[in-house]
């Protein structure tokens, strides 16, 4: 049977089997497994059939816990059911996993294994999640490559049906889930041969049915529970042999043979590594190389980790083995060793091979690289008389000295293998083009090919790296291309030259392709010294293309993808040039054909224009440049920022030793200010003559890069020459005060929202405003100096003005600045406003999601401090528990304040009755009151400072809680509407004084746009490919039903004053507050610079009514609900069809789009009518109406 050969990644390969072998699929997005769910949803939406000719039912749940429960139910009623997950998601499934196993239920979960959040969250791959379920009674089957991921998905399904033990099939997150490589595709016929229909029917027959009623899920007592726990033992005993049987069957069907433990290496090996997952590929290749040189080394790859078959393990080892190193991709603090190491120690003991010496070590946590050099280091260690046990690989552990020394010059790049590294900007299409390129090479030539893609930690505007390998031999290299190994290095963005060391990857005699603003005759002198040195020393062939120019002329805008891809093929000579161009065009048609002829033509034009613009540079013999690469952070940055965070920014975090890091995940705040990303091509320039000083631009800036200050005009002494200022128009600060609006030129992202919101129009040319975008390069240096001067002007004392107006509120210093959120982000203006209003006394609980990523992803954090050193204290616990997490913070503050008050009263005689009374009775309703209380607390501490009384020391440690604190619970709609809703509801119900800010983007933004219950009807999202058929959940209405929760629905773009008022009221309300904020997001699919206008339309159409519900009004006999938007004046469609998420449905299925839009219109009207009725209800003391009648 001919097996199709395809280029595919691990997620798609796995999902393709899982989808064909399932009837019900319950999913929830979590990186890096989301792709499997997305593919399944897409295939089912298109009606793709499973092996039995029916389309699997795919449902998105509210959490992984929900998905597991649904899977459990579907299994209990006899459906072939699966799910996909990772990391925290798998942990949430544990309770159901115990149940499913306890009930001996056939199923397979597919897991893209990922790190667990401990001291920090990480989305990258390791086996911590897998190891956390090894005790649940599931079979654990490990695949180590994309081919294996596909194959094991089938083997697992075949085995579980026979064994009845549930299976978890796992592979390494990102490394396998996201690697694109060439594999043999399993055909339907092959799958048919693997799956026994009788076993499927037997599974179905075990399902609960009233036709033949049975009962499961009993409660049991000491008399029988234990016995029943033992009753299924034989099934576990039988499972390994069943898996081997299915592996043997699979070999007959496909020719690919696997074993429970696969040994390879020297037949008389003395030193053997035991490993699981993709690392096995590395070890296998390294061992083959060393064994060929006569070294007696080998590797035993663990496939079936649970049930662990000692018998098969022992049989798998050559008799000659003297020592074993077990490599665990996990960490179990406090254990005597990592789990697999302990398993092997035990297996050798029970298997009567205790003569073999065993050591264990950790490697590859959070996708840390694992290389042939590291493998060799382990094997070398085994040769030592006293090898190090419990070692680590790939890090420099200078604290507990666990790490093995690795000779990084050892490498296995094989003969004929071509390695290429490409540096691109997220938005320029580099990765997409390289995915296309590697597909072309893999599918259109005889070469084996592999593509792996590396992304930065920021949401946008960052460097991507594509690692492509191809060659005549099979590629088993699940690690990045190493230094000095790349035959081809391409830089797709000229600006990278000044900050990224790209040529360290280049091999001697390799090729360097640069997307250059300068032609072949001029470019040399514009290169930094380091680049010139490398080109000369490594004898690189140097090519340039002005891709920017080609892109501009062919309408490609900022997209370099097709151009640089063509240049790559033209220079590298992998295919004859004409054939390459034909293939690129074929790929373009395949990728973009469905989007229309114009897109295809535009890309074709770019291909055709590229070759003529490609030039080889004659490389001079000498370094001539006077410039050098920029430092990652300036030298004046604090030591930790310079030495640790700077090294991370410089892409060299791998080489930072353990001792440099905090031991508990605690980091300093205010660090984004040192990371000058210099992203904007244009920045806003202030026209002080027509500015009305309204502060709207400052308010709306998502990145806090435009700020205004009012200050004593005497402070202008020493101002830089170009520093702009004018007389203050603030009524509180008029005579003698100057005003400046200043932009941070190297932090601005160029999103233009500030210009869009500016209400001023120049009377002589209405297109000009009081701020206008102008090219950044000419302004950069002078404005950077102006910014420094501006920042040194003291902030206006917050006690001196009321922040209730926009312009005043924006005098408060943002304590959330320069985040790595997308340019024009609709969430960050709210977050920034909270930081301004309450940041100096705020504790923040932040749900996992976009806001935790731009808020807390290394290297730097936008949460900052004011001049007094105060600022928001921030933490992220999990995705699902954020409301509870924040409540806990509130409880501490309340309890400690209570205790402080108790202590304070007992010190009345020591510190004076007057001070104690003043502290206890302080009015902290405004900034002046809070400021005065701070002074009192300082006085209190001073008075108690010299006391040796333990209670006085306690009071000093607690006294800060006597100053009003503000607890903010922040997260997105995925958290608030879905996974965290139960907790959120309980926290609202608790009545405690917490402030909940929901940044409602109406979609799971951080994981790539999956539908949430906040997604509106008629919008397309992942998991709602054919348009969401049901309306958006009304979270505000639910919260209002308590009657004692402050609720506001706000939209800054439509009414900034209402947003400000709502946040101030929410915080002032002594009880739970919920503010739901309309947050434009790039997942909506429109120009983010128009988000203010679009937000207005959302409000005008009734899609997003604005209101405040203040329980205090009800107490005063007034209706608590105040609707602050007008009756809808435009149809919902007028708002909706500006956004691709709605519009694309009209292009995919016009009739459904029309039907859903009609219903969405009805939703808006019904919601408006309901709110109107609620807002017009009569409130009063008792039944007023009745009283009036009498």
């Amino acid at each position, binding site marked *: 049977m001919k097996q199709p050969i395809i280029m595919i990644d691990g997620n798609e390969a796995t999902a393709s089997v899982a989808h064909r072998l399932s009837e019900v699929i319950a999913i929830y997005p979590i990186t890096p497994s989301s792709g499997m769910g997305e593919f399944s949803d897409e295939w089912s939406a298109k009606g793709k059939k499973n092996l039995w000719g029916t389309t699997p039912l795919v449902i998105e749940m509210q959490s992984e816990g929900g998905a597991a429960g649904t899977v459990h139910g579907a299994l209990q009623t006899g459906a072939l059911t699966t799910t996909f997950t990772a990391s925290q998601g798998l942990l949430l499934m544990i309770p159901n996993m115990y149940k499913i196993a306890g009930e001996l239920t056939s199923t397979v979960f597919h897991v893209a294994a990922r790190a667990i959040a401990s001291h920090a969250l990480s*989305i990258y791959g390791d086996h911590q999640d897998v190891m956390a379920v090894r005790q649940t009674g599931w079979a654990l089957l490990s695949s180590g490559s994309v081919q294996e991921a596909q194959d094991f998905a089938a083997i697992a399904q075949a085995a579980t049906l026979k064994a009845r033990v549930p299976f978890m099939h796992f592979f390494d997150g990102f490394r396998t889930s996201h690697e694109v490589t060439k594999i043999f595709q399993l055909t339907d016929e092959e799958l048919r041969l693997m799956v026994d229909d009788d076993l499927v029917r037997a599974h179905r027959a075990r399902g609960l049915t009233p036709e033949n009623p049975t009962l499961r899920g009993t409660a049991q007592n000491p008399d029988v529970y234990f016995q029943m726990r033992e009753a299924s033992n034989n099934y576990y005993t039988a499972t390994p042999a069943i898996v081997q049987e299915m592996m043997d069957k699979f070999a007959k069907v496909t020719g690919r043979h696997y074993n429970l433990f696969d040994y390879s290496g020297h037949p008389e090996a003395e030193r053997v590594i035991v490993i699981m997952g993709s690392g096995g590929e590395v070890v296998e290749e390294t061992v083959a190389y060393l064994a060929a040189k006569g070294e007696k080394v080998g590797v035993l790859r663990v496939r079936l980790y649970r049930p662990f078959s000692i018998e098969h393990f022992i049989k798998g080892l050559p008799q000659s083995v003297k020592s074993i190193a077990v490599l665990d991709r996990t960490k179990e603090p406090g254990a005597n060793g990592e789990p697999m190491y302990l398993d092997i120690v035990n297996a050798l003991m029970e298997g009567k091979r205790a003569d073999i010496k065993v050591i264990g070590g950790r490697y590859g946590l959070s996708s840390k690289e694992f290389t042939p050099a590291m493998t060799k280091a382990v094997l070398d260690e085994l040769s030592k008389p006293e090898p190090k046990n419990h070692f680590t690989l790939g890090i420099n552990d200078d604290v507990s000295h666990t790490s093995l020394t690795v000779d990084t010059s050892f490498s296995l790049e094989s003969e004929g293998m071509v390695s290429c590294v490409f540096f691109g900007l997220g938005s320029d299409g580099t990765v997409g083009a390289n995915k296309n390129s590697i597909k072309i090479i893999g599918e259109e030539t005889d070469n084996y090919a592999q593509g792996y893609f590396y992304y930065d930690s920021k949401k946008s505007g960052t460097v991507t790296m594509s690692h492509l390998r191809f060659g005549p031999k099979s590629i088993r290299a699940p690690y990045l291309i190493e230094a000095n190994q790349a035959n081809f290095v391409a830089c797709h963005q000229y600006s990278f030259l000044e900050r990224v060391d790209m040529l360290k990857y280049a091999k001697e005699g390799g090729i360097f392709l640069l997307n250059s603003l300068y032609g072949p005759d001029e470019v040399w002198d514009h290169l930094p010294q380091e680049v010139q040195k490398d080109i000369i020393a490594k004898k690189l062939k140097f090519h340039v293309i002005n891709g920017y120019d080609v892109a501009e002329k062919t309408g490609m805008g900022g997209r370099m993808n097709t151009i640089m891809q063509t240049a790559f093929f033209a220079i590298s000579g992998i295919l004859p040039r004409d054939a390459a161009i034909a293939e690129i065009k074929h790929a373009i048609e395949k990728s973009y054909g469905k989007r229309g002829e114009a897109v295809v033509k535009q890309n074709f034009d770019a291909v055709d224009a590229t070759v003529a613009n490609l030039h080889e540079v004659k490389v001079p013999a000498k370094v001539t440049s006077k410039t050098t690469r920029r430092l990652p952070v300036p030298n004046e940055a604090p030591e930790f920022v310079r030495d640790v965070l700077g090294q991370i920014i410089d892409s060299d975090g791998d080489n930072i030793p353990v001792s440099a890091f905090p031991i508990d995940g605690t980091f300093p705040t205010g660090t984004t200010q040192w990371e000058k990303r210099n992203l904007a091509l244009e920045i806003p320039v202030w026209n002080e003559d027509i500015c009305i000083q309204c502060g709207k631009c400052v308010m709306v800036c998502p990145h806090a890069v435009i700020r205004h200050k009012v200050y004593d005009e005497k402070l202008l002494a020493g101002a830089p020459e170009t520093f702009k200022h004018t007389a203050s128009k603030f009524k509180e600060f008029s005579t003698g005060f100057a005003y400046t609006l200043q932009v941070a030129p190297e932090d601005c992202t160029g999103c233009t929202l500030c210009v869009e919101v500016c209400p001023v129009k120049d009377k002589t040319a209405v297109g000009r405003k009081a701020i206008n975008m102008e090219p950044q390069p000419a302004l950069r240096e002078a404005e950077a100096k102006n910014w420094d001067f501006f920042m040194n002007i003291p902030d206006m004392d917050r006690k001196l003005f009321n922040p209730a107006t926009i312009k005043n509120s924006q005098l408060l210093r943002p304590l959330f600045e320069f985040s790595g959120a997308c340019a024009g982000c609709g969430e960050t203006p709210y977050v920034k406003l909270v930081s301004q209003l309450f940041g100096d006394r705020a504790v923040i609980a932040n749900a996992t999601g976009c806001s935790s990523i731009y808020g807390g992803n290394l290297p730097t954090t936008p949460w900052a401090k004011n001049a007094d050193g105060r600022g928001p204290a921030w933490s992220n616990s999990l995705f699902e528990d954020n409301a509870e997490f924040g409540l806990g913070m509130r409880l501490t503050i309340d309890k400690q304040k209570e205790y402080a008050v108790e202590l304070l009263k007992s010190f009345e005689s020591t510190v004076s009755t007057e001070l104690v009374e003043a502290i206890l009775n302080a009015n902290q309703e405004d900034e002046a009151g809070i400021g005065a209380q701070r002074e009192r607390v300082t006085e209190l501490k001073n008075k108690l400072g010299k006391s040796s009384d333990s209670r006085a020391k306690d009071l000093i440690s607690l006294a800060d809680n006597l100053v009003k604190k503000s607890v903010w619970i922040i997260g997105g709609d995925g958290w608030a509407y879905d996974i965290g809703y139960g907790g959120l509801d309980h926290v609202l119900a608790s009545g405690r004084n917490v402030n909940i800010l929901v940044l409602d983007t109406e979609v799971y933004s951080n994981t790539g746009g999956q539908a949430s219950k906040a997604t509106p009807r008629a919008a397309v999202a992942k998991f709602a490919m054919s348009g969401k058929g049901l309306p958006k959940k009304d979270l505000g209405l639910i919260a209002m039903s308590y009657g004692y929760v402050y609720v506001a629905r706000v939209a800054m773009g439509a009414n900034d004053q209402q947003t400000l008022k709502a946040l101030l009221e929410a915080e002032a309300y002594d009880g739970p507050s919920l503010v739901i904020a309309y947050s434009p997001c790039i997942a909506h699919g429109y120009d983010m610079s128009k988000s203010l206008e679009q937000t207005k339309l959302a409000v005008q159409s009734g899609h997003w009514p604005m209101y405040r519900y203040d329980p205090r009004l009800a107490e005063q006999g007034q209706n608590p609900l105040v609707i602050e938007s007008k009756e809808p004046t435009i149809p919902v469609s007028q708002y909706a069809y500006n956004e691709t998420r709605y519009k694309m449905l009209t292009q995919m299925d*016009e009739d459904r789009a029309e039907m859903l839009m009609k219903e969405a219109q009805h939703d808006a009207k019904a919601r408006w009518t309901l709110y109107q009725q609620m807002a017009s209800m009569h409130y009063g003391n008792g039944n007023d109406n009745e009283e009036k009648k009498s």
Partner: protein
Amino acid sequence: MTDLSTTYLGLNLKNPLVASASPLSKKLDKARKLEEAGISAIVMYSLFEEQILHETLELDHYLTRGTESFAEALTYLPDGGMYAVSPEKYLTQLTAMKKALSIPVIGSLNGVSKGGWTSYAKKIQDAGADALELNLYYLVADPNLKSEDVEAAQADLVAEVRAAISIPLAVKISPFVTALPNFAKRLVDAGANGLVLFNRFYQPDFDLDELDIVHNLDLSTSSDLRLPLRWISILYGKVNADFALTSGVHSGKDVIKSMMAGAKVAMTASNLLHRGEQAVGPILSELEEWMKEREYESIRQMQGSMSQKNVREPAAFERANYMKVLSSWRELP
């Protein structure tokens, strides 16, 4: 019995009232209702090449933007569907209209690229259109562009489309031409079988509160009839084409005037957009009753009867006409 039939572009029509290009033709049921109400032919809404290009590139842009930048969110929108951003959607609708209706269906095309005009014209023909209306909707804003060059280019375009298709071809033109009769003649010489007078341009307005430009389309009124009425009257008999009058046709009398000026058909859209198919009956009844009352036997009889060449004072359509209007205004009490 009064004969309301006419011919237009070689098509035999049961009466001269044609639905001009409007969104009404986007819905089959609406088109069916128009046919039932008595409309004699339907011009499809325009296939705008520029719009297709824009929608295609826009969709591509927003499906691509932000992708492959951040490891957790490699894309932001699902991209699984086949998108109706190509002319296919239009062509499918055209074919469906042809299938559903027994009256003629005329395709309408507004291109931007040379290749676009001819290839889309062919596709419209292949989809089954009975005729094609080219919509020369083009506003010249460049002071360096000469009228003669613009006119020559448009005539060339008509010739190219003519060469590419075999179905009848009408051209919808704008009134903003210095020497309209000459331009009309050039288009006919280039192969146009009919001329549709006139295209209505969206006229921007200023919002003085926001200091902004506002765009809205005012539906036509009967007074808009005057402009095409004059020009058809002038062109009738001088330029060998079938004329269609569009803009301002709201009543049976408006249709009669159109016919008398020399039009073969009168096209209406605003009225239909405003009142739906119910607008059709009263217009046709008024037309028929008027004809009966005045003992007209057929539409053909009146076509061109008040054109410039058939009136006693041909100059009335030219400068004298202008003078007369002014003096009539002065004479008002």
